[in-house]
């Protein structure tokens, strides 16, 4: 998958069984006008988790690319397809899963060979062919797979570096 040496994908995303019930689930029609809402939902939650403004925006971008691919390649531009996005937050407290944000994108499209889902080589500059690469560079772990019944699934995770932040506020005194 042409991973760059400085961004090795060390970990696999946790299994759906390990993750349990999602915190948030979004079911959306396969329409480009809905991309902004869904990526902003995930970006806002990422920020609350302690990811930086830039990282939260990038996580939103990774999701946007995944959804856009389902709309373009999976549903071929049909606007009444269903896309399911699930989101989990792991606190990393003693469980097998480190602290992080986990996303799962599922569709009801014809299944394809997951190994065919890959971007162009970065050196072969042409319009397009970047989405999967962006997903892989931004997220710490990602995997495309066939769903049990029908459709495709993308699972992806981004872990929180050290104790990056808190879910609540902080008070600073001066003067």
């Amino acid at each position: 998958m042409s991973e760059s040496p400085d961004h090795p994908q060390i970990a696999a995303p946790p299994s759906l069984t390990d993750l349990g019930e999602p915190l948030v689930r979004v079911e959306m029609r396969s329409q480009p006008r809905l991309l902004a809402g869904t990526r902003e939902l995930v970006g806002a939650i990422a920020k609350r988790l302690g990811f930086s403004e830039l990282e939260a925006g990038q996580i939103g971008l990774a999701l946007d690319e995944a959804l856009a691919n389902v709309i373009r390649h999976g549903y071929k531009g049909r606007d009444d397809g269903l896309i399911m996005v699930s989101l989990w937050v792991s606190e990393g407290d003693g469980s097998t899963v480190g602290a992080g944000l986990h996303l799962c994108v599922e569709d009801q499209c014809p299944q394809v060979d997951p190994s065919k889902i890959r971007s162009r080589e970065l050196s072969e500059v042409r319009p397009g062919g970047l989405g999967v690469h962006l997903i892989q560079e931004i997220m710490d772990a990602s995997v495309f797979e066939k769903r049990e019944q029908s459709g495709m699934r993308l699972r992806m995770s981004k872990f929180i570096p050290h104790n990056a932040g808190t879910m609540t506020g902080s008070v600073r005194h001066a003067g």
Partner: protein
Amino acid sequence: MQVDITSNDANTTVAPTGDVDLSVSRDLQSALKKVMDDKPERVIVDLSGVPYMDSSGVATLVEAMQISRKQATRLVLCGMQEKVRSIFEIARLDKVFTIVDDPATADSA
């Protein structure tokens, strides 16, 4: 959300940054209560860093106003962004609070 507190002479400025909603309004509440405990002459709440506030945030400010009136502290809100101002207007609280535009003029309001 983060809350910065600065004091000079008789004025204490409380400056929250970030969205103030149900998930963090309790932090603003305790910061305001703590500041009021010192009974300063004037408490200035600088809202210029708050792009969004819901009614739980408004409630903490109403509570602070009630405390301020009991102890003769002057409470001034300043720097409200348009979206935040609109909730005060809908709730008809824009005439109940002392609200000034510019943090620089809040010292004398």
